[in-house]
């Protein structure tokens, strides 16, 4: 059958991380080709165009960052950064685990990709959300790492 109808809708989810996981599961059942919630630039990625809007997060994370899915090739030791890919020098998994301590995590379901509008990094199959204090931790570690590299 010829596809001649294109219906677009904006969608906002509000609920807990667990509910969000279930919500994403339902979206997944529709199949990526059926969903165009919003658009994100994911060049040469089959999931390009799919965005999940995670509005229901604590106020302190509002207007913080927009993350986007990185090339899976950049994953190292099960950890990579959504908004902020690790630099060449790499901070090492232990430091990332320290930054992740106590932070909210959202599990990633297979085939559901991207566009988290908040600072986050990825640890295995989880997204770890980064608040401004976490960002300070990240900058501090990064500065130490880069200072060693450049001097």
């Amino acid at each position: 059958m010829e596809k001649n109808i294109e219906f677009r809708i904006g969608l906002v989810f509000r609920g807990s991380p667990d509910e969000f996981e279930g919500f994403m599961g339902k979206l997944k059942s529709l199949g990526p080709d059926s969903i165009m919630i919003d658009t994100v630039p994911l060049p040469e990625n089959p999931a390009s165009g799919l965005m999940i809007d995670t509005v229901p997060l604590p106020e302190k994370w509002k207007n913080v960052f927009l993350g986007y899915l990185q090339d899976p090739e950049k994953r190292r030791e099960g950890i990579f950064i959504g908004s902020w890919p690790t630099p060449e020098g790499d901070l090492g998994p232990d430091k990332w685990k320290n930054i992740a301590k106590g932070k909210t995590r959202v599990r990633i379901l297979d085939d559901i990709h991207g566009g988290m509008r908040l600072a986050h990094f990825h640890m295995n199959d989880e997204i770890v959300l980064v608040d401004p204090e976490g960002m300070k931790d990240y900058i501090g570690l990064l500065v130490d790492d880069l200072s060693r590299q450049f001097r």
Partner: protein
Amino acid sequence: MFEITPLGQQIKFGFFGGEPLLKFDLIREICSYISEKSQKQPHQVSLFITTNGTLLTLSIAEFLEKTGINLCVSVDGPAHVHNLNRKFRNGRGSHEAAINGLELALKHTSNVAVNAVYTPETIFYLPESVNYFLTVGAQQIHLNFDILSSWNEIASEVVEKIILEITKIYCQAYKNGEGVAINLIDNKILVLLKGGYSDQDRCGMGKTEWGFAPSGRAYPCERLIGDDKDTSLCIGSVEQLIPIAGDHPFEDELSCSIEECINCSLRSYCMNWCGCSNYYQTGDFRKPSPFICASERASIRSALLVLEELRENDGFIRHIAQYVSRVYAQ
């Protein structure tokens, strides 16, 4: 553009010159067409204009604000700096008209930046110019070197010293509880945080990026248009673009070929891939000049200094967060 841009990617349209406001009616017409197209296509569109400010009026500013066009006003600094290179045809300096335009823009539009182009003659005034912009209320500052000038006589130590002075002004602004955005520093901060330039950041010369002259001729970058008389770099026209392929000089422009760059520890954070800057400075799209190298080194080190100094500054963290959010939200 709408047809060839992959879904989900943003299309950026920029008006520049010469002076684009000489053809404001045409700009309005083009914006209307883009708006009409973008309502039918799922692309995000952003518009920006770079003007010398001398023709800016309240009604134009209101149109730019209503249409969501990002505005950049070219002012090189205080009058004694600006008037060295920016004069009316009668020889009179244009500073007064330009600053009136900038002040009008700051008052009536929400997203305005100042574009200061520096030459080998005016680079020494840059710290003074940055302070000047802050006093007139311009907090988004773009500092761009004149790619057509010869920079061979400017020593790398001089570049480093000047950028360091600007960095001190930048840090002091945040320590004073104020804010400032300076492209030379902010761009490098973002690149450091990201871990280096990604493929999407690099030039899309003639592949995803084009400059169109008033004649309709197309070039692989707006900065390669020049006076539109040297058509050797022309890649077709607004009606028919010539695809970049094979032995075309821009085909491999992204890969810097000189050994010093390949072995440089700052390689990931360096804009040595900017084809038009390289071309005008060395005649080779893939070869950066010593001046570009010095500028890049100084900017990267300054960005690191800022991160070291302001890592606990709430205003700075907020600035970077909002700035990044805006960049990636576009």
